[in-house]
């Protein structure tokens, strides 16, 4: 849910609204890479995938192009693409859920058919897929984030209120033998997209890193350059691997302003701007894809470790990417506020209603309809 409600256009089509992306080596098999796309945050029991949307996973080999203050990635050319499409539902299951068939087109051109909500999903040619309703793995206290931004003071309580407690999402999960299906590596950049299907599919949304569009880009009031512009629909429409130079400065100005705000929350500067007047994280964060190294063993809390190692001029030791159970809000706020130079920032929410497991399809089964209200 780190990207839910991430722009006015996304609001109109909940099935095209990507809430989170995860990438991690399979906990049970280091030869396999798992990538997850969540859509439709706070989805009620009847939620299904759109038959007019292509749910796309783009995976590219990526190199490290610089370290220290010049830390940057250099994505390779050409994607390995997994495309998911869905039919109009026909009938209902015993549990009352609509029955919907889906298909995954793999980078090798083979098709995997499956029925949504079937935990075994479908499998073919070194890949296993799942799509269906699951428990929301993300957890955060939105009210206290808003209060922090409104007051300019960290407002998290020791025991917060999880805005997403007991809610569900629609998830798509792929597990595959990465050495067999991908070429290059072992560093890969991953971005998920939703596209309006048709002869020329049109990108509706894209997500790579968590909390870029909401926590990092959404606040307009600190941005002296474009304080009136809702920048996120424009940002969503861009190719994550090829941002248009025309708009890059607008995104960076927004990010510089908002990151500076967060840095000041502990009344000391941990991220002095560089000689060009940019926040040291801005360029790395605008490389808005998850970077994962599946040759490293599975780790619980590895998001941004590759990037931190680049900034510090050392070799990364974890797979990076992002595991389902990592407490992203604590991580992001600690990173932005003190860069790890101070005590960890705790948002008062340390777990979702149910942890994801180490077994395919990893995300916990959906919560009963009334769990959120209770």
């Amino acid at each position: 849910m780190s990207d839910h409600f991430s722009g006015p256009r996304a609001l109109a089509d909940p099935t095209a609204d990507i809430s989170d992306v995860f990438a991690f080596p399979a906990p049970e098999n280091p030869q396999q890479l798992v990538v997850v796309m969540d859509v439709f945050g706070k989805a009620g029991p009847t939620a299904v995938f759109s038959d007019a949307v292509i749910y796309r996973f783009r995976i590219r080999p990526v190199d490290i192009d610089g370290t220290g203050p010049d830390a940057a990635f250099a994505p390779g050319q050409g994607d390995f693409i997994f495309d998911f499409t869905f039919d109009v539902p026909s009938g209902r299951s015993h549990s009352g859920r609509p029955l919907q068939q889906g298909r995954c087109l793999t980078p090798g051109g083979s098709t995997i058919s499956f029925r949504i909500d079937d935990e075994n999903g479908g499998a073919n040619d070194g890949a296993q897929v799942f799509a269906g309703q699951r428990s929301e793995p993300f957890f955060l206290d939105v009210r206290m984030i808003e209060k922090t931004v409104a007051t300019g003071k960290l407002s998290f309580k020791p025991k917060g209120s999880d805005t997403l407690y007991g809610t569900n999402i629609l998830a798509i999960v792929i597990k595959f033998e990465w050495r067999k299906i991908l070429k290059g590596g072992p560093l890969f950049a991953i971005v998920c997209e939703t596209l309006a299907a048709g002869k020329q599919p049109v990108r509706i949304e894209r997500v790579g890193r968590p909390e870029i569009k909401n926590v990092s880009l959404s606040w307009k009031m600190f941005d002296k350059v474009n304080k009136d512009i809702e920048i996120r629909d424009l940002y969503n429409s861009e190719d994550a691997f090829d941002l248009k130079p025309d708009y890059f400065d607008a995104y960076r100005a927004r990010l510089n302003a908002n990151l500076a705000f967060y840095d000041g929350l502990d009344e000391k500067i941990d991220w002095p701007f560089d000689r060009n007047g940019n926040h040291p994280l801005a360029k790395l964060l605008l490389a808005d894809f998850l970077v994962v190294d599946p040759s490293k063993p599975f780790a619980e809390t590895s998001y941004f470790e590759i990037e931190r190692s680049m900034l510090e001029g050392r070799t990364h030791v974890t797979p990076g990417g992002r595991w389902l159970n990592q407490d992203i809000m604590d991580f992001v706020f600690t990173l932005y506020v003190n860069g790890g130079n101070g005590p960890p920032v705790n948002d008062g929410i340390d777990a979702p209603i149910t942890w994801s497991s180490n077994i395919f399809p990893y995300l916990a089964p959906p919560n009963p309809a009334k769990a959120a209200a209770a």
Partner: protein
Amino acid sequence: MIDPSEVSAPTDWPVPGPLTLTDGAIAVLNLQAQIDGLEGPSTFAEAATLIDLLILRGLILGRISDYERAAELVDCKVGTAITDAAAYVVRARTRAVFHRFTEALDDLDHADRILPQGAAAERERAAILQAMGHYNEALVTHEAAAADREEKFERAAALAGFWAERGKTETAQHFYLDSLRSYRGVSPFPLALLDFQLGLMWMRQDRLSEARTYFRTAVRRVPAYAAAQGHLAEVDAELGETEAAIGRLIPLATSSDDPDYAAQLARILGEIGRSEESIAWRRIAASRYDELTTAHPAAFADHAAEFWLGVGNDPRKGLRFAEFNLRVRETPRAYDLLAQALDANTTGAASARCFGAQLTNRAAMQP
């Protein structure tokens, strides 16, 4: 001031390419899923979204209970967010649904005083002014709201609806095609709502074949769209396809809490001599109109007037509601309805015809 003659249709309209839209059945399932998922404790932004979704479901499925729930929620939210401008904008939208136009405009003014509002709130204001029959102001406000050129679809759709209501068919169609060309979403709802407005426009022009095309398009996009199904049935009946009309209306009249469908059914059944069935549906409609005009007099005055002047067969009651309706909204249709009501009340029939002519002239003088 914008001269309508400046907004003319081009001689050669490029036809928009085929649109990829979510199947209407999926869209309704997901609308339900959105509403279910947002029930319970939430942020204000989510509550505002829930209110919008309830209004949308009310509009699509013809469920007045959804509008009522939206109104309850918004009153509660404004109470807890008294200094939040967005709360007043949401309440304005809900009040407009119930034709409480003056209060809705007050809310928008209040929101503007707290924090100047953007294009979305201006579009809200324009729609309210249009519904009240203040067409010049509405058009100026529509154009002001359109200053944000990023929102091409919203602008074109609003103007298509405006000109459709004004009966300017060429201009309405020009903006309708503009809307189709600029639509970037996959939800079928915005386009089905637009198809419906164009269908209504042709229906009011007595161009039933064209009306049927647009209503059918709306129904093809969203089969559960109650108002489109209901109006399609009405057109079918006018074109002599009575059984098809009855087939469309029975499920609507049975499931919807909006009495319009029962009233239409009663009328059509009466016209083909199925009197007992007609009387039964008429009773159901009458009872529900009485409930609704007690709870929300402004919102249902026009439809109630039409009912009582027609199959409801109580012209005096019809006149009362037609008079009240004209106080709520000074539109040409409201004047026409009053003229019709005066005509139907025999004691004033002559003067009604005379007054009706004046009213029609007055209506024609509207921009």
